[in-house]
């Protein structure tokens, strides 16, 4: 594996920002589907945290832009799903994570891996199918893993990760630690049966899992209103008495506040929590999707009015917490990390043919 990039502050700052567990409102009322976080981001998001979030989100954005370019050049093949637009979700959530917590998601996983502190070089090299990739070139974009960073994949079967994430939480309870499983899935995946089997078991056994539903409004070309009988996904745990909230997933402060509350709830032993992140993907479902099922205006409006990175930038500048030059400097540093990763991903050799026969019971 390539040397770890200099991006290792996230766990440290996550620990700092992982504020004292307060009793969440939902804990008292036990009312499912509260919407307290929507549009009312916590005010206690410091300027250091804003800067941290800015850097992290920008890293994901630039990484994904580069991956998109490299796909276009034929350097990346197969399936490749970009996270552009959704950066605030995983970045805000990782700011409440602490060492030992686990993250699991589907195939739209590059952002999650970077936010977990995985090495951009190792991720990019997996995209190009090289030996320095996280899965030695065996997995590709959809299938990476890092024991060290608590990232449990990278799964290609829609919804398949949800019961696995429930099991990660089971293991935390079994070990008696106060770690949490952050189990991510999409609006489309929320119609898979195992999601509800997971909800029931997680509540029954009081498992410490936050189900983070990334509602980007489409599952491939199908809008949520065309696939779902009810579209407020934060209510989906109601019949299991799992509290849920709808969160502005384009605002990293709101994500952080909701995540903080949910994490406290889980760490205190109250069982699962559902956060429905209202978000948006700017690009097509995958690199081969021209996204004809939605209007250009719809995408433009999101980008112009809700972009998670621009929001932070505007706040920082307005508060005079930083200036354009300092932000440009961050961008430069991020770009150089990404360029270095891209360079590595193109020069690292392909796997040795003998690698075919490793990692398998024979």
């Amino acid at each position, binding site marked *: 594996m390539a040397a770890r990039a200099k991006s290792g502050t996230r766990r440290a700052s996550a620990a700092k920002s992982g504020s004292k567990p307060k009793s969440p409102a939902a804990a008292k009322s036990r009312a499912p589907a509260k919407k307290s976080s929507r549009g009312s981001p916590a005010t206690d998001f410091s300027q250091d945290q804003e800067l941290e979030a800015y850097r992290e989100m920008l890293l994901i954005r630039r990484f994904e832009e580069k991956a998109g370019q490299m796909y276009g050049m034929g350097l990346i093949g197969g*399936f490749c799903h970009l996270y552009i637009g959704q950066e605030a979700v995983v970045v805000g959530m990782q700011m409440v994570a602490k060492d030992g917590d686990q993250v699991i998601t589907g195939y739209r996983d590059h952002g999650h891996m970077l936010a977990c502190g995985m090495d951009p070089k190792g991720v990019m090299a997996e995209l190009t199918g090289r030996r320095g990739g996280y899965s030695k070139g065996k997995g590709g974009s959809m299938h990476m893993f890092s024991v060290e960073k608590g990232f449990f994949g990278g799964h290609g079967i829609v919804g398949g990760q949800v019961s696995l994430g429930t099991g990660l939480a089971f293991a935390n309870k079994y070990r008696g630690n106060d770690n949490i499983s952050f189990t991510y899935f999409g609006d489309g995946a929320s119609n898979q049966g195992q999601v509800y089997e997971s909800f029931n078991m997680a509540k029954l056994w009081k498992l410490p899992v936050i189900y983070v539903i990334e509602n980007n409004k489409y599952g491939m*070309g199908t809008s949520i209103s065309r696939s779902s009988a009810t579209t407020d996904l934060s209510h989906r745990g109601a019949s299991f008495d799992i509290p849920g909230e709808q969160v502005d997933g384009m605002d990293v402060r709101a994500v952080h506040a909701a995540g903080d509350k949910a994490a406290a709830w889980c760490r205190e032993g109250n069982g699962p929590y559902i956060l429905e992140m209202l978000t948006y993907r700017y690009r097509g479902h995958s690199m081969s999707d021209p996204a004809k099922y939605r209007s250009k205006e719809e995408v433009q409006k999101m980008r112009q009015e809700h972009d998670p990175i621009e929001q932070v930038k505007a706040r920082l500048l307005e508060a005079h917490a930083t200036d354009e030059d300092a932000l440009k400097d961050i961008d430069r540093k991020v770009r150089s990390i990404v360029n270095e990763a891209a360079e590595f991903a193109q020069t690292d050799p392909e*796997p040795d043919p003998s690698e075919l026969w490793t990692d398998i019971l024979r």
Partner: protein
Amino acid sequence: MAVMTYIDASRQAVAEEMRRDPMVWAVGEDLGRGGVFGQYKGLVDEFGPDRISDAPISESCIMGAAVGAAMTGTRPIVEMRFSDFALCAVDELVNQAAKARYMFGGQTRVPLVVREPIGMWRSSAAQHSQSLEAWYAHIPGLVVAVPSTPADNRALLKAAIRCDDPVVFMEHKNLWALGGDVPDGDDVAEFGKARAVREGKDLTIVSWSAAVHTATEAATTLAGEGIEAEVLDLRTLWPWDKDAVLASVERTGRLLVVQEAVSVAGFGAEVAATVAENLHPALKAPVKRLGAPRIPISYAPVLEDQVRITADAIAAAARGLVKT
């Protein structure tokens, strides 16, 4: 005759059968937009969203609901997009659909077609590349179709839609763009009839799905060296054409089975065992199988390519058999 692609041939089969029989309908994710590969393109315009039905991502319920609807006599075509995703619905297919007719003493039938595209498709990796046809061939009650040409895709799909038992219909993702002659009119295949792609006296190569084309390419190379290989395309794995295979191997005395799927416990094992059981004295060489190693499919092309059965590997295996 018309020249058309494998994908267009399947679309035509569905359209014609839906025109013929109002009980035929299709259900799956993104069908209204034409399906993930475009197999259903334009069909919603002609048949409407009740018959070309867009389902949520809920494979087990899609399959189960189709089984229930089939029990009442409607004829659903279930689109699973990748055979890998159909694993989410194996209970509904294997425990319910496959068993109902027999288990209920013939009181119900399940006229269901499950389309499950198979196969390697450049860098699709472990969860989008599998060839699982042998799983279903193992299950009593299921028909398994594995078309290799546009003509067969149309004729077999029509037969599948008209069949009163559940049919697992496995198209190969790499064949969608393949062109070929397709007979005009209502060409409906008979299950369990192999096609002789090529005749030959020196050995019999048995194959199905995309591997048929690789086997045929190898046979052409071998012909240049004076080795005449007979190539049989099974077209359906259940029922399968034992008679044609046994008759051919009886003449040639040599059998080579070529499959893209994992060789271990693959359908090739059934073919090889059947030939060995029935033709032992007539065999001039031991039966031979070529297939993938028992390893998940990798993303990196260098690793993915290693598990592909190439025309060179087939020709080499054939030479080895003929020498003995």
